[in-house]
């Protein structure tokens, strides 16, 4: 790209779920998650593409919107970018309006609004392959003539599917259609009717015929959206998912664990004894290696989530749960942020920008950390494997049942907290959920693999990055100062970390935590899964001789009581053990008040739940 000329600024605009993000990926080669439910694009997405003339193009993927009359923050961003109202984002030089060919009327209505702004525009008829399969007819040439802008068919998910669009853009075969006098005015009923008449005229002129709907889709939807049968199916799907996380992952986890043990043994045997060997065996392999073991579980969990997303099932789950969420005072729009929070609370909290009502948004932000994020999975996996026997309960795996219960505990407690928050709110407004249910489809294999690869990369970069670095620091704190001559206890008891653990033990003793857990909770504030690595390092440093690189799971199984393990599980359901989440809450609410309230109520809940669980299980066991 020639640095002396400014690249062409292009904005992609379209209704949610029209394939805009896939087209963005096709144009820029970037990797963004392609979802099947509306509202996925909340953050600013920009990518670059080189052009033969050396100018290049800068493509901006705008949040999906149904209209330029915004009701949410992300829709307002789309309008403001198009109007050049954002200080750091100049107005685009070309707008590519992406419409889903299968559902042309919805997209074309927005296209008419965008056209009235007077910006140079190209209309991309996306998903043309699906439209042809479903007998949708569109005369693109007639549509272009009527609309007065170039119209090009695209298939964003297919290699070469955007070539026609690139040809039109690079060839400069586009011009401004001319602004309408009413473009920037507030829309009234008369104006809406005018747009609707224009839309009907365009549909007739382009010979649009609506898609053929398979009778099977109707029958499947009737079952999946049934208030009772639909909920039962949703529960069954989730249940199978958590069973699979334990059953399918067992073998690959054992392989990784054996590889880590061999690596630890090999390193200890082939290096001269001393601090460097201890750092590598106990800090690096014993610490970061103990988190790496959980990679297969993460892959299986996300395989299910991505497959459900790609198949079109998740928006139906949102529709099913809307009534339940409304009954505890949550907006239907809260479903997608809360679902995202199962991967990580941070994008979930950022996705609450799609909720127009501030009170609803705040409630969703406050309960988002209660959703079980993927960082909790290593903690749950370790404790369940160590303390819950791997036996069958009827057709089910007991370990999978416990994992399902923990995820359910997160969701139920979030609903309860939302219900309590509702009692303190007056003059509530109901914010309805508007969802376009996408067609059912088989999950796209490349989308699935790409999504899984993204999750694997994120997990490995955390294990090899911040987790590894923190384990090296923790190893140092667990090793120095060294024990005085004649000391009889494990060396770690005399170290800085040992002394910190002994001090914290007073706070955590009532809920059954020992000093090793107390130490692990401190670096675990950086990220939840760091606690597993920290336990690996602390226990490796507490052992002696041949046990140095032993696996963590049998050590916990033999040295912790069931009550302690259950108490730690309860702690992790509630505790806000993630500083990044609190920082994002501060940024999103623009106040320290809410992250402090969140940390306070979550720590109080965690301590109370752990205290009760510890006492009950100890009395029962």
């Amino acid at each position, binding site marked *: 790209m020639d640095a002396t000329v400014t690249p062409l600024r292009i904005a992609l605009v379209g209704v949610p779920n029209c394939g805009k993000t896939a087209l963005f990926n096709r144009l820029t080669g*970037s990797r963004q998650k392609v979802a099947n439910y509306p509202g996925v694009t909340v953050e600013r997405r920009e990518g670059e*593409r080189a052009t033969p003339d050396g100018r290049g193009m800068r493509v901006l993927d705008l949040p999906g919107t149904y209209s330029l009359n915004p009701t949410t923050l992300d829709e307002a961003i789309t309008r403001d970018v198009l109007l050049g109202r954002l200080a750091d984002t100049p107005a685009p030089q070309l707008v590519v309006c992406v419409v889903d060919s299968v559902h042309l009327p919805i997209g074309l209505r927005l296209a008419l609004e965008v056209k009235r702004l007077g910006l140079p525009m190209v209309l991309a008829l996306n998903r043309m392959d699906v439209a042809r399969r479903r007998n949708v007819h569109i005369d693109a040439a007639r549509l272009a003539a009527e609309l007065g802008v170039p119209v090009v068919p695209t298939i964003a998910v297919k290699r070469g599917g955007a070539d026609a669009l690139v040809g039109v853009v690079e060839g400069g075969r586009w011009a401004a259609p001319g602004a309408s006098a009413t473009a920037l005015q507030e829309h009234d009923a008369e104006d809406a009717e005018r747009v609707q008449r224009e839309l009907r005229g365009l549909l007739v002129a382009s010979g649009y015929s609506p898609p053929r709907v398979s009778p099977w889709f109707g029958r499947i939807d009737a079952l999946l959206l049934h208030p009772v049968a639909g909920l039962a199916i949703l529960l069954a799907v989730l249940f199978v998912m958590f069973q699979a996380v334990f059953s399918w992952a067992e073998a690959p986890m054992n392989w990784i664990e054996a590889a880590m043990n061999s690596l630890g043994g090999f390193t200890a045997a082939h290096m001269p004894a001393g601090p460097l060997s201890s750092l590598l065996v106990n800090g690096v392999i014993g610490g970061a290696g103990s988190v790496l073991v959980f990679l297969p579980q993460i892959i299986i969990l996300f395989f299910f989530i991505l497959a459900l997303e790609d198949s079109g099932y998740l928006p139906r789950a949102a529709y099913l749960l809307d009534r339940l969420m409304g009954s505890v005072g949550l907006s239907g729009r809260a479903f997608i942020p809360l679902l995202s929070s199962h991967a990580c609370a941070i994008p979930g909290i950022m996705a609450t920008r799609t909720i127009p009502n501030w009170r609803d948004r705040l409630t969703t932000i406050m309960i988002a950390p209660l959703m079980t994020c993927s960082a909790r999975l290593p903690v749950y996996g370790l404790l369940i494997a160590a303390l819950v026997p791997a036996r069958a309960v009827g057709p089910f795996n007991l370990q999978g049942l416990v994992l399902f219960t923990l995820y359910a505990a997160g969701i139920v407690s979030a609903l309860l907290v939302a219900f309590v928050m509702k009692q303190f709110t007056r003059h509530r407004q109901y914010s309805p959920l508007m969802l376009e249910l996408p067609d059912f489809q088989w999950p796209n294999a490349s989308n699935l693999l790409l999504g899984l690869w993204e999750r694997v990369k994120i997990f490995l970069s955390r294990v090899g990055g911040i987790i*590894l670095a923190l384990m090296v620091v923790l190893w140092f704190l667990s090793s120095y100062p060294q024990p005085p001559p004649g000391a009889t206890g494990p060396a770690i008891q005399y170290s800085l970390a040992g002394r910190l653990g002994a001090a914290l033990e007073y706070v955590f003793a009532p809920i059954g935590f020992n000093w090793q857990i107390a130490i692990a909770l401190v670096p675990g504030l950086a990220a939840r899964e760091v606690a597993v690595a920290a336990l690996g390092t602390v226990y490796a440093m507490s052992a002696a001789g041949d046990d140095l690189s032993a696996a963590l799971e049998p050590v916990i199984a033999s040295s912790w009581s069931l009550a302690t393990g259950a108490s730690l599980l309860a702690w992790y359901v509630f505790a806000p053990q993630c500083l*990044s989440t609190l920082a994002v809450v501060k940024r999103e609410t623009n106040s320290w008040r809410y992250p402090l309230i969140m940390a306070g109520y979550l720590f109080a809940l965690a301590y109370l739940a752990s205290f009760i669980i510890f006492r009950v299980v100890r009395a029962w066991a």
Partner: protein
Amino acid sequence: MGLDSLVFQDFLVALIVLAALGFSVWKLMPARRRLRVLLAFDGWSARHPSLARWRERSLKPRIARAAGVGCDGCGANDVRRPHRPR
């Protein structure tokens, strides 16, 4: 002096621990503060012509990345590379 030497091992371990500490502080620093540190580096390097190449090739893209990334805690805001058609 090789790995058999305890002094050499101590030296290596001290280096690794210091690097890990620096990396941890950097990664756990709030995004805004990290951006401020990078901008301060940029201002300082602008006064040293010998660093011009490093500034253009390494520092500028890092600043652009830091300006666009929220918390670095997840992969939601990963950096995109320009796509060059064949």
